[in-house]
């Protein structure tokens, strides 16, 4: 096609609305913008917002998977939820698990970060070691710990070398929950450690020097300077860790199957059992609504507390 053909083609269109005038640069930009966000936007609508709406709708139904039929049951699933004899224990296990995980994870992450922030040779090497479990595939990691935590497993073997007779970790009411928490903390604490390390490196050195001149000890400097200075990161990691703790599933499915009793049956595991093992999808949806409300409430609470905790906003 020659340049003349092109010009003739343009001239053939109605002269009142030449395409150039309509497709101004801002309009073209806007169109490109819409096109570029459209996959993510469509995905958010189809796979996040629609299911979120449906979960409320399905919690009012009983869905028979085999027959493929829906039956409207109104508030029946919610009445069942309130009367569920397991719910109290499930929520207690969930709360204990989350609280234990968050406290242990943040404390250990901060300790490791402070230790590795010292001027010391080989910190990169140690950083890699502490971080390495993050990269081990989750179920592989969990299987190894299941193996280690058996009655005659490696942990008790090591304890035996020290002359201590270890318990059957995963079968004891009190040790099972602790075991799952520890396995999860060791797996993922490296992520928070890295975030804390980056935050620590951003604290101005002059603050420490000034405090030292004023006679502040190491502990005082940590509490009065380090903690306030890195508080935005503490808030960020605590939100990530709390929400993450409510999502833990594979570890529990592999390590304890929620037992012994309901001592490690956290809400997500209970939801899975009800919906996909016992095929009570309607009740599963009701438990999903409960999970959603808990996550939303916690996120909101942390956001509110932001002003008290956070020394400065970056």
């Amino acid at each position, binding site marked *: 096609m020659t340049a003349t053909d092109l010009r003739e083609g343009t001239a053939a269109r109605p002269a009142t609305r030449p395409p150039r005038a309509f497709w101004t640069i801002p309009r*073209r930009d*806007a169109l*490109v*913008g*819409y096109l*570029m*966000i459209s996959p*993510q*936007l469509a*995905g*958010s*609508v*189809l*796979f*996040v*917002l629609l*299911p*979120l709406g*449906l*979960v409320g709708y*399905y919690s009012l139904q009983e869905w028979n998977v085999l027959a493929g039929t829906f039956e409207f049951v109104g508030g029946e699933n919610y009445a069942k939820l309130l009367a569920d004899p397991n719910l109290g224990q499930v929520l207690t296990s969930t709360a204990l698990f989350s609280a234990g995980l968050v406290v242990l994870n943040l404390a250990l992450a901060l300790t490791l970060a402070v*230790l590795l922030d*010292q001027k*010391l040779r*080989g910190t990169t090497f*140690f*950083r890699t070691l502490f971080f*390495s*479990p993050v990269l*081990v*595939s*989750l*179920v*592989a*990691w969990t*299987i*190894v*710990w*299941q193996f*280690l935590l058996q009655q005659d497993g*490696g942990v008790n073997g*090591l304890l*035996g070398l020290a002359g201590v007779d270890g318990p059957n970790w995963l079968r004891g009411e009190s040790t099972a929950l602790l075991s799952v928490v520890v396995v999860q903390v060791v797996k993922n604490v490296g*992520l928070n450690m*890295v*975030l804390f390390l*980056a935050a620590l490196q951003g604290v101005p050195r002059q603050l420490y020097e000034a405090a030292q001149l004023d006679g502040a000890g190491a502990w005082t400097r940590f509490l009065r300077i380090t903690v306030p200075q890195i508080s935005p990161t503490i808030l960020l990691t605590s939100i990530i860790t709390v929400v993450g703790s*409510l*999502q833990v*599933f*594979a570890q529990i*499915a592999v390590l304890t199957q929620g037992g012994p009793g309901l001592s490690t049956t956290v809400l997500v595991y209970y*939801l*899975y059992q009800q*919906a*996909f093992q016992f095929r009570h999808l309607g009740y599963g*949806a009701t438990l*999903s609504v409960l*999970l959603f409300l808990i*996550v939303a409430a916690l996120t909101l609470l942390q956001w509110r507390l932001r002003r008290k905790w956070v020394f400065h906003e970056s």
Partner: protein
Amino acid sequence: MSRRVKLALYAVLSALCVPFVFPTWWMVTSSVKPISDIFAFPPALVPTRFDFSTYARVFELQPFGQQYLNSLYIAAVVTAGTMAVAAMAGYAFARIRFPGQNVLFLVVLVGLLIPSEVTIVPLFQLFHTAGLTDTHWPLILVPILGAPSVLATFIMRQFFITLPGELEEAARVDGLGRFGTFCRVALPLARPALGAVAIFTFLHSWNLYLEPIVFLSTPSKFTLPQALTQFVDAYGSPLWNVQLSAATMTALPILVVFVLAQRQFIEGLAHTGLKG
């Protein structure tokens, strides 16, 4: 810092390392021990006798090669797809002005606050109705387009916001359109952020467990995390030596790759985490 303080620090760090390093070491060494040595007391930290036969049994008991391939290709497709979707959306939200932008960004952001476990029942029903259960589609489509990619979009947007505007103006003067500017100018500069997104996404897909066990029922379609738990005897007790061999094959390649590239990885992660 005095010598004694340094020594004490090394001692503390080394002691703290044990629970982080020991399990992986134990997994790899036990996978090559004869079964009788696995439960030996006291435990041997270094294997004295070797038995590689369990590695063969992994493939006899399950279509493990196929399952490995499933996990690899799903993670690869999800990673590439998420990078494309998140880079485009992140760029548009950061640098292009269009009506309704803020509202649409909020709509997308909801995905950050909703754990995928909340929506698993309706998602199962949606895919069941569409006849797509026991296929890999849910494990591919939901991560690329749904809640998991929202975090990636957010990370990319935070990165693109920091790009200096002059670069784009120069590209525009040179006659590039918006999409051309994105491809030729912004995307090459975004390599660190894209790298972090890629690693995050790959690991997320590689570790996915709830979704595969909800959606898949045919062993040849299983992914690795799901397959790992299936090495059990007739009574449902784990075949430890086989499980540990399979776990080693699942964990070790990824671990080796990332330990080699750990510097870029950890720095990229810390960088992105702070900007977020």
